[in-house]
């Protein structure tokens, strides 16, 4: 981890309320641009956080190896949000105040991003996050336009679910949601989109985490006799629910977000239970060369295929996009100037590029359009991307991609 030892000790001294080191120790080095990797390394985001952080570090190294962006090298400071707003606020304060970062990358849960974004706004820093809550797109959270969302909003997920349910010919959907912002966001988004298509959701069950059993919840949803159940759920609860569902002998189909319907789920439940499940994910831009680079980096850093962590691809893209915007803004540009270039380097209208080095070269010739590893990465006015959604079906214990749906 490329953390400057002196900074760290200074930080420790800071916590001990012994600001022994003078202000000069924190002065911005001329040739560096400091960014914070603020990820859910522990807490409920822990399955993704470490990979996200490692991809920020790997991408920063890659940018530096290519000669830096806008004449500056990245210096990365890594922190853990603990997937907890209060811990995240303190971590963000530390990143902004002690480490003097000018951008914070990779916050994950909506609660965390909502708590951190007022701080980055105040500091005039950029926040790039992977949270789904619609509130992050608009004022007050994104009043300054410094926030960028690399993940589909929960609403968009819901729209994708509705597209898929329609395409697969389901007529009588019901939903089950884990009672948190993301879980309910998914199923509510689905309901809105489905009703817009003239359909009706037969039953919408919201359940609490950490229960010894979900049979009552299942019974209620199955009583409506749906032909498909759409969930906004996580791995542990999905495991328990599907096991109990299988044991009821029921034959309803399931559409489940990809972060829950993943290889771990298949491993936990076996091929019989998971046969025919739909797994939906905002997909990485897998055909693109950018994804190949990310995949190689992920395999090298984490030892798993890049597909296993879509958020890793997003944090990779965060660094590359930021670097390209810095390059486009030119040497010594301030954050506002860099921020103004974000859409210029990512949205359609220029030469398609797939890596920082490629983009840096192409920028000399004119406009570029970075096609990311996580999506084609086009930001709308609110700073949100609209990725494509991949639909996989689990068959004989294998998760097989069937098609890609665009919304």
């Amino acid at each position, binding site marked *: 981890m490329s953390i400057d030892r002196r900074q760290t000790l200074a930080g420790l001294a800071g916590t001990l309320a012994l600001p022994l080191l003078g202000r000069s120790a924190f002065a911005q080095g001329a040739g560096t641009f400091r960014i914070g990797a603020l990820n859910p390394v522990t807490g409920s985001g*822990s399955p993704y956080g470490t990979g996200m952080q490692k991809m920020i570090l790997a991408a920063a190294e890659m940018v530096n190896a290519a000669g830096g962006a806008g004449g500056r090298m990245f210096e990365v400071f890594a922190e853990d949000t603990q997937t907890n707003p209060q811990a995240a606020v303190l971590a963000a304060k530390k990143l902004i105040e002690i480490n003097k970062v000018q951008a914070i990358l990779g916050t994950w849960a909506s609660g965390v991003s909502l708590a951190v974004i007022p701080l980055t706004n105040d500091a005039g820093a950029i926040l790039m996050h992977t949270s789904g809550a619609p509130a992050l797109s608009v004022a007050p959270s994104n009043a300054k336009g410094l926030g960028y969302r690399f993940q589909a909003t929960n609403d968009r997920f819901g729209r994708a679910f509705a597209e898929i349910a329609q395409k697969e010919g389901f007529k009588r959907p019901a939903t089950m949601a884990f009672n948190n912002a993301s879980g309910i966001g998914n199923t509510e988004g689905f309901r809105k989109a489905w009703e817009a298509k003239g359909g009706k959701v037969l039953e919408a069950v919201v359940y609490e985490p950490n229960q010894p059993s979900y049979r009552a919840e299942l019974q209620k949803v199955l009583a409506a006799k749906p032909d498909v159940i759409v969930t906004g759920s996580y791995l542990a609860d999905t495991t328990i629910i599907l096991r109990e569902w299988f044991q009821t002998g029921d034959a309803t189909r399931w559409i489940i977000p990809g972060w829950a319907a993943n290889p771990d789920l298949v491993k936990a439940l076996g091929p019989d239970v998971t046969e025919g499940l739909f797994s939906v994910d905002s997909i990485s831009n897998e055909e693109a060369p950018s994804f190949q680079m990310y995949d190689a980096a992920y395999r090298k850093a984490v030892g798993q295929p890049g597909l296993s962590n879509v958020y890793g691809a997003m944090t990779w893209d965060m660094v590359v996009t930021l670097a390209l915007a810095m390059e486009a803004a030119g040497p010594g540009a301030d954050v506002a100037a860099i921020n103004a270039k974000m859409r210029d380097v990512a949205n359609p209208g220029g030469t398609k590029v797939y890596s920082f080095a490629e983009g840096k070269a192409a920028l000399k010739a004119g406009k570029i359009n970075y096609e990311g590893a996580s999506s084609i990465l086009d930001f709308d006015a609110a700073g949100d991307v609209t990725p494509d959604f991949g639909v996989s079906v689990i068959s004989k214990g294998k998760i097989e991609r069937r098609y890609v749906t665009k919304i």
Partner: protein
Amino acid sequence: MDAYLIAIAIVTGIYVLMALGLNLQYGLTGLINFGHVGFFCVGAYAAAILASRGWPAAATFPIAAAVAVAAAWPLGLVSLRLRDDYFAIVSLGFSEVVRLVATSERWLTNGVQGIAGIPRLFADLSGTTQALAVLALLLVLNGLAILAMRRIVASPFGRMIEAIRDNEEAVRALGKDPARFKIQVLMLGAALAGVSGAVYAHYIGFIAPEQFVPLVTFQIWMAIVMGGVGRVSGALVGSGLLMLFLEGSRFLRDLLPFVSEVEMASVRIGVVGLALILFTLYRPQGLMGDFTRR
């Protein structure tokens, strides 16, 4: 740098306010309140809901305190006549019920989506000045709480609650009803937690039910156990130590490079556990000494 220290100081101040309340309840009266976070939650939501509707902070603070007190009153009425350890569990259950209400009643609390964009205190100030103003407010609030605590300890009321802590049966034998005093103490501690919650809501700017889990209660318990039960200085020192535990682990990681980030979460909780064990075993009086003599 400065702003980070100020942020730490602000969060510590929020904890101190809660710890003072718990210290009054457990340290002075012997009430085993395991539901402290419930009052904190009630105060935070009261302030957040009102502030979001445009109420000024001058109004949200007293109302946060009042709502927390109003929540404490029925809890005290039904459960303070129970055995001490029963009250511990019932109060723990109470705080969970509060969290469930915040989760369920979406019309009021926006459910699990939480309340975002809670107006900040001293919004017309900016940057470090604003943070310093919040810190100053906390210092004033804590100062007032400590003064009130002093006044209570020196009063016949304080003598009676300490008598209850020492021997409740004997108090009843003298014809005084311990429950009456315990309810008042519960309400007073709840008021402090409620105000603390209001500061928290205004400061963090975003609250959701998942922030109000029982772990927060146990952190406050750890603070007063480490600092010294029954002493105002114990609440101060203990809260400081607690923040050192919670925030220090950020820096500890660099000193223990062989511990991965994921392992750090386990190390953190293990250190908290060990501290609880070692303090109860070897230093039950906490760092600031025995409560026998104030």
